[in-house]
């Protein structure tokens, strides 16, 4: 039978339940395993074939030679669409995707990150 206010019961029940939302950023629910966030680069494994660059849909990654058999990757976080295609395209498993997603920066220059052996910081980042 139809009647108005049928949802009222659910409303009252909800009053005594925990909120459905998370108090972000004080609390973080985290991202699931395998979430596609910021890239990680392993320079030791890279052979500089540039397959990742060729397949990247947004031109966000650049591999540069910095020495004999040494390469660094520059990723533009603003351009990257976090599709993980470069990871799939790399036959040497030099790229990896992490679940890190809070990548906004106030300074646009900081959106370009260089990942290489010397720059240990960004490797861990």
């Amino acid at each position, binding site marked *: *039978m139809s009647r*108005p206010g*049928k949802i009222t019961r659910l409303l009252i029940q909800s009053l005594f339940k925990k909120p*459905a939302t998370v108090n972000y950023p004080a609390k973080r629910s985290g*991202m*699931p395993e395998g979430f596609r966030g910021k890239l990680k680069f392993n320079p030791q494994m890279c052979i500089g074939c540039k397959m990742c660059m060729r*397949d990247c*849909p947004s031109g966000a990654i650049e591999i540069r030679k910095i020495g004999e058999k040494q390469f660094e990757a520059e990723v533009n976080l603003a351009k990257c669409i976090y599709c993980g295609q470069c990871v799939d395209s790399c036959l040497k498993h030099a790229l990896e995707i992490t679940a890190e997603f809070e990548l906004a920066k106030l300074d646009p220059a900081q959106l370009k990150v260089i990942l290489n052996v010397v720059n240990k910081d960004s490797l861990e980042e």
Partner: protein
Amino acid sequence: MHDVHDFEDVKIPIGPQHPALKEPESFLISLRGEKITASSVRLGYNHRGIEKACEERTYTQGLYLIERICGICSHSHSTCFVQAVEEIAGIEITARAKYLRTLIGELERIHSHLLWLGVAGHEIGFDTLLMYTWRDREVVMDLLATLTGNRVNYGINTVGGVRRDISHKQKEEVLKAIDILEERTKYYIDLAKGETTLIKRLQGVGVLSHEDAEKLDAVGPTARASGIERDVRKDDPYAAYGELDFKVISVNSCDVYGRTLVRLGELMESFSLVRQVIRKIPDGSILVKSARKVPAGEAVSRYEAPRGEDLHYVRANGTEKPDRVKVRAPTLANIQSVSKMLEDRYLADMPIVIAAIDPCFSCTDRLVAVRDTKNKGSNTVVWETIRLQGIEWYKNKGIDFTSLNEKLTKLS
């Protein structure tokens, strides 16, 4: 002097900001009193040039662009496109890949229909419904993020199969989430059938008769609520649908209430489909290796998106990039029927009537035809000319993008 009580028709432009959804398109409404006597719709405010951009990208790159046509049925577009490419290249994907595409497709339908239910609630002033449906929708969004790595642009398809497999643990998670969602959907069905205000607000609103729906070629839930049993999943099965058991939900009420019931019914079918996929999914590999170059040829592919039939046409020329890509989003097929639904109805019904076809105007904008009235006939304009014309047009309006362009180049 005119008698003030003699109403003349009043014309009101509505848009280019949507009265219901946050998308750009405009309607011209002719009103007599509160009643709409005529209406016309104008699209073309959000042309993104995606088809053209696809010609400049390889198939792999294009797939990610195609996926971004729609922020809700992203998997629909990418599957539709990749099916066409695979047909041209003569690639037969593995059974497991087919099942995985079906799984994501149905989860996407669940999230899309729940989203619609919330939007519909909002349009009729039933915001409580919006809050609860969108809360429950998070369950399926989280599930999609777990399975694919993203909430919206799943990036699961690739030419020759899918990119991610499903683990045993994930299967359990899917079943658990589906149980929760099914219970919630049952509640919403109960609510839709038992809440007087909702029934009274939606019944007899936005009527599209069976004949009109046939004549105007409505698709998806819009057609099925007018008694047309049209569903690509049944009529021309793709992916794993040929091996799965499901009903095409249709009702004969021809109004917005019917469209609500169809979508709720489809949710229940989707739950059953997801369970079948999890039960039946065969073992094996998920990807068939394919060449980067696609041989010359053309193909049309159809896909039943949550909003109706999606259609992609791809022409290959033997290189790594397509020669032509054409996309017909479901909204383009449904938009014609909106004018019919609005005819002789109250202005206040307009938002919910438009929202009831579950439109996606930005996805629909494919082509803008500018008629040259002075020199009759047609002529072809090349890409570069249009670009320069655009820059010139803005310059004449006093807007110069040169400095902005420089800044952008510096950024990249």
